[in-house]
C-alpha cells in the first residue's frame, strides 16, 4: 500500500504565500519516512493534507491509488499531534478519549504503559507524556494503515521519548503500518526511520 501526494499545491488565503507548490511525496506501508524541515516550512500543513484534515487546492492525495477523500468512515491515515493537551477534549475522561478512534487493543494500552487508573482522569490531571501515550493508542486503531507523527516527542523528556518511539517502531513494523515522522531532531530520525527526506524552502 502506498500513500502519495501528487503535485499538491496549498495556500491558506489567496493573498498569502504558497505553503506547498507542486509538491510530491510518496511512502510505502513498509517504510518509516523521516521529514526534516525548518520551522515555518509547512510541515503541519503537509501532515494535515496527508491525513485528510485539509484538501489540496490542486493535485491529489492518494492512498492505494484512490483519493483519500473517497474513504468513508474511519480514516486509514491517522495523525498524532505535537501538543497532546490540545489534541484531546478537556471535558472527557481518558476512557472516553480512547473511544474516539477505532477499536484499540488492550495490548496496546498495556505496552504503552497506560495505567488502568489513568482512565478515570481528565486530561488536565495527566502529564504531556502520559497524554501523548493516549493519543498514540487512539491513533493505532485496527483499521489504521498509515501513521503521521508530527513532532510527537518534542514536548517530552528523553526517557518518555525513547519509550514512545521504541514502542511505535515495533508496533508499525509488526502490523505493517506505514509511518511518516516529522521532526527537527535529525539524530532521532536516524534512529527511528528507514529513509529521510530533507525539505528546503
Amino acid at each position, binding site marked *: 500500500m502506498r500513500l502519495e501526494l501528487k503535485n499538491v499545491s496549498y495556500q491558506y488565503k489567496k493573498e498569502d504565500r504558497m505553503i506547498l507548490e507542486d509538491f510530491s511525496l510518496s511512502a510505502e506501508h513498509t517504510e518509516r519516512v523521516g521529514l526534516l524541515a525548518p*520551522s515555518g516550512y509547512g510541515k503541519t500543513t503537509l501532515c494535515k493534507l496527508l491525513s485528510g484534515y485539509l484538501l489540496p487546492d490542486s493535485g491529489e492525495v492518494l492512498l492505494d491509488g484512490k483519493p483519500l477523500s473517497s474513504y468513508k468512515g474511519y480514516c486509514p491515515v491517522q495523525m498524532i499531534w505535537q501538543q497532546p493537551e490540545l489534541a484531546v477534549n478537556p471535558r472527557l475522561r481518558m476512557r472516553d478519549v480512547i473511544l474516539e478512534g477505532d477499536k484499540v487493543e488492550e495490548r496496546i494500552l498495556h505496552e504503552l504503559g497506560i*495505567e488502568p487508573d489513568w482512565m478515570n482522569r481528565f486530561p488536565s490531571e495527566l502529564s504531556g*507524556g502520559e497524554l501523548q501515550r493516549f493519543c498514540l493508542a487512539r491513533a493505532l486503531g485496527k483499521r489504521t494503515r498509515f501513521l503521521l507523527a508530527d513532532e510527537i516527542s518534542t514536548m517530552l*523528556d528523553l526517557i518518555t*521519548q*525513547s*519509550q514512545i518511539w521504541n514502542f511505535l517502531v515495533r508496533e508499525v513494523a509488526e502490523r505493517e503500518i506505514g509511518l511518516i515522522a516529522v521532526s527537527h531532531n535529525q539524530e532521532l530520525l536516524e534512529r527511528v526511520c528507514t529513509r529521510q527526506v530533507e525539505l528546503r524552502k
Partner: protein
Amino acid sequence: MELNVNTEKGAAPGAPVLKIEHLHISFTQYEQGLRREQMTVIRDLDVEVRAGEMVAVVGSSGSGKSLLAHAVLGLLPYNASAGGKMEYCGSELTPDRIEKLRGSEIVMVPQSLACLDPLMKTGHQIRKGRTDKRTKNKLKEIFRRYNLKESVEELYPFELSGGMSRRILISTALIEEPKLVIADEPTPGLDLKVAKRAMEHFRELADMGAGVLVITHDLELALETVDRIVVFYAGESIEEAKASDFKREETLRHPYTKALWRAMPRNGFQPTDGVQPYAKEMPEGCPFAPRCRLCTAECSKEIPWRELRGGRVRCLSAM
C-alpha cells in the same frame, strides 16, 4: 558587544543573583463538594544562579518546573502556596521587591504562546509602548538576528506561526537590560538552528553579566550552551552537574540522570520502564526508587544532598 548590564548595583561577577533553597509549592484543590485537598507539585527544589552564569533546570514536561519561574516572579495562582527561601542579589526576594523588579531587572520568557496580548501589535507589545529611537533600533536588531521581517512588528499575534510567536516572546525579554533572565521552555516548536540561536542569545546575556535560568525538558539543547544543569524529577532537584559531566555516563551521578543519558538518541536510545509518580501518589523518600535498580530499603527514608565529584547528588548509592 556593548557592556550594558550594570553590575554595580547588582551582583559582582560570580556572586549569586538568585538563590533558592528548599522551595516547595502546593495547590489547594476541591475534590468532591467542599472536601479540600493539598497537592504538592514542587516538594524540594534547590537552585543557584550566579552572575555571568547560565543554569538549566531540566525535568520532564508536566513535572511542575514552570511553577519555579512563576514563584520567582510572584505569579503563582491564588490557590497555590509556596515556601522555602528565595534570595535575589543577596537579600530576600519579597513580594514587594518582586513587583518592583519584574519586567526590568528580572525578566521572564514565558512558555505559553497565549501570554502574548492578542489585541496588540507585536512591535508595540515588545517595546511596551516605548517609541524612542534607541528602543526601536534595538528591536530592529533583535528581529534581524531572528530572521523576522520588519513588517512583523505590524502583525497581531494570531497572524504569527508557532515559531514566530516563540521568537516574539524571547524578544520581549531581550529588549530590556536584565540582571536575571528566567526562560521557561523557550524553544519548543523552533527548528534546531533557531533554537540554538535563541540559546546563544541567552548565553550572551550571561556573558554580559546577567544570571540566566533556563527551565526546559530539552536536555540535549541545554547541554550545548549552559554551564550547569540541575536535574529535576517528580518535584525534587536530585542532581547538580556541570554540563561537561554529560559527555560520559560515568561522570554523572544519579541513576535517573544516567537513565536520561542512555535515552538520548546518540547514546543508545534505551528506554527505562515506568513513569514519574503522580503528585498525589508520591513514594516516601527517593521519588525514583520504584524505577531504580540500585534501590534499597534505605531509599524510603529522606535522602540528603551529598557533594560528589564537583557536583551534588541526592542518592545513597551514587558513587
